[in-house]
């Protein structure tokens, strides 16, 4: 993969910025998000790399990674980011783009009673809504 003037001018980055309300240029790549992420071991690209790829306009690489689905939306990264980057918001925007393209939500409000049981942490339910609904 090569970064060129063309790839850097993609429009997709603007869409992600519009959905998330976040300017990815704020990130200076310290890697705090990755260091703090409790599920980074399962990710194919690391959270800080998601932001770097977006800064470079490499949107395809980000949309095809498993990271955005592994992300538990726990907000640890956002809580510790020295630049105040809302990375969970960016992750959500990336998922929303894919879900909107796909056209359906995996997780509907009607399904709620079925999955609700004592073993399901509340954050898991909220996270599920975040991750699998458009």
């Amino acid at each position, binding site marked *: 993969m090569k*970064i*060129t*003037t063309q790839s850097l001018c993609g429009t997709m980055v603007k869409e992600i910025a519009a959905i998330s309300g976040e300017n990815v240029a*704020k990130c*200076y790549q310290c890697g705090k998000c990755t260091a703090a992420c409790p599920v980074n071991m399962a990710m194919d690209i690391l959270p800080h790399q998601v932001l770097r*790829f977006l800064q*470079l306009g490499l949107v395809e690489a980000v949309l095809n990674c498993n990271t955005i689905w592994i992300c538990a939306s726990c907000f640890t990264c956002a809580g510790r980011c020295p630049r105040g980057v809302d990375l969970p918001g960016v992750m959500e925007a990336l998922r929303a783009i894919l879900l909107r393209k796909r056209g359906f939500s995996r997780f509907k409000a009607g399904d709620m009673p079925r999955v609700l049981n004592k073993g399901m942490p509340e954050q898991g339910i909220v996270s599920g809504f975040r991750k699998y609904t458009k």
Partner: protein
Amino acid sequence: MRRIGVFICWCGTNIANTVNIEGVTEAAGKMPSVIYADNYKYMCSEIGQSMIKEAIIKEKLDRVVVAACSPRMHELTFFKTAAAAGLNPYLVEIANIREHCSWVHKDKQEATGKAIALIRTAVAKAARNKELWATQIPVECRALVIGGGIGGIQAALDIADAGFEVDLVERTPSIGGRMAQLDKTFPTLDCSACILTPKMVEVASHHNITLYTFSEVEKVDGFVGNFEATIRKKARSIDLEKCTGCGICWEKCPSRVKSEFDEALVMRKAVYVPFPQAVPNVPVIDRASCRRFTREKCGICRKACPAGAVNYDQEDEVLQKKYGAIVVATGFDILDLDDFGEFSYGKHPDVLTSLEFERLVNSSGPTGGRLLRPSDQSPPKNVVFIQCVGSRDKSRGKPYCSKICCMYSAKHAILLREKYPEAQAYVFYIDIRTAGKDFEEFHRRAVEEYGALYLKGSVGKVFPDGDKLLVKGVDSLSGHAVEIEADMVVLAAAIKAKSDAPQLARLLGISTDTHSFFTEAHPKLRPVEAHTAGIFLAGACQGPKDIPETVSQASGAAAKAIILLSKDNLLSNPCVSEVNESLCTGCLSCIKVCPYGAVAEKTIEEKIHGKALKRRVAEVNEALCQGCGSCTVSCRPGAVNLKGFTNEQIMAEVDAICL
């Protein structure tokens, strides 16, 4: 029999951890002539000094040895302590048992033995110390400032405002220096000329400042408080008094040469003013390119000048001036990029240095402030900035960080976007260094508000691709290779010392580092003084610096100069050479080795067997002598002695170590 007191310092744990203090104290007490030995945790403290004072009085000590740190640190402290107790300070001797012993050794037993030997040496020397008195030297209350950039301007104004006369010598036809070439300044984006020109005008109109532009310092003799400089005022070929600065001469001049001020991006005339706000606003004739001088033809400017100010017969003027202090503010150059072929600099017109870019965005520059590509005069869309071109480069450039490039490149990225909102800046960097007030915020603004894309990594090659430049680099953060089709490439070339800095250093008798930057007397605590007393440093001639740092250092140098000039007299160092005329054979080898010109020959008359005989001997000028001791070692009959370090004292030291 002397009455010597030895005082041993622990220096906290610095000495005490490696040297057995009690053992050393006991051994010192048994040394010849030592009647008192004691130790304390911090000899330099108030309590430690009181110990010494009390012992001098109580024990009637007539010599004192302090075994502590280097004499560079605290010799003066202990001199003052002794003087306060009524003892001539030159009867105090320092044994350096820290830098020369505890810091460089690990084995306590061996270090203790060495500390004892060093103290024995100092005791042997101290026993032969004689009382010495400093003499007074008058101070010439005028200052010389070399270099008319912002550093020199600030230093001259500060010294002049303190009420002292200042001569400001500038080599080029106008003062202003590098700052005059700049468009905006980081991190406030102030217009550089707008904040500089009022100071330039102030220099020109200040009643205490005499401005010598197009002039050079050729020679400096003398010493602190009494320098004598030779200044060559090069022939301007224009009468400064008559010229009105109307500009007709340079309009009519048929010769064209590359403009130094505009970084050779445009041509200037042979008779020229470097830039519109030049001070003085009087042209000079560049005789190397003027047809009148190269071919004995032409003469148009003289015919055209309505004021009759053109004078082809003007000659260089050589002035002799006396000064008490000198401030050196000669600035910097940028690295020659011949060794960096991969960037195509010099081969493609759209590959520029940052200073050239600065001229291109400047409203007084070659494009009137419209940033256009030199190749086709079109506005650039994609501009690649490459950092650390020759900086932090041990093999082809300079190992140091040029300090200002991170910030001016962020500024350039912002200026680019302000001129052309659609343009994109790419910045290849190795590290971003923004240590300065509001610097990091400024850099982040370039990234977040002005959309500059920062790519961590180097550029391997820049080459022409149609009417564009293909830049091949890497983004090491993502691990991807990068290819950018650029319209313009801007190289942050390393800052280097002026190529003639070593010559100026020799002329002034100051030192330079391995990169020819002038060295300060102490990197932390004496950052504006040169090693030679009375000479002060300001700005990038001492190391890469931005404008606020240069101005601060210049004001610091000015303050130091003012301290010196405000004294009527200076105390001289009494440790100077003296000639024993009865031993001197008149070979005068001491004159040859003296770096300060302090030894001269004289003729004396002696009566030998009733006959009057004339004889040639050497004589030391105590005001010029710096006490280096070169003459003493060159003297074959041993007639020259350095007071405080006589041959007898040195031999006693050697004996004390060896015997």
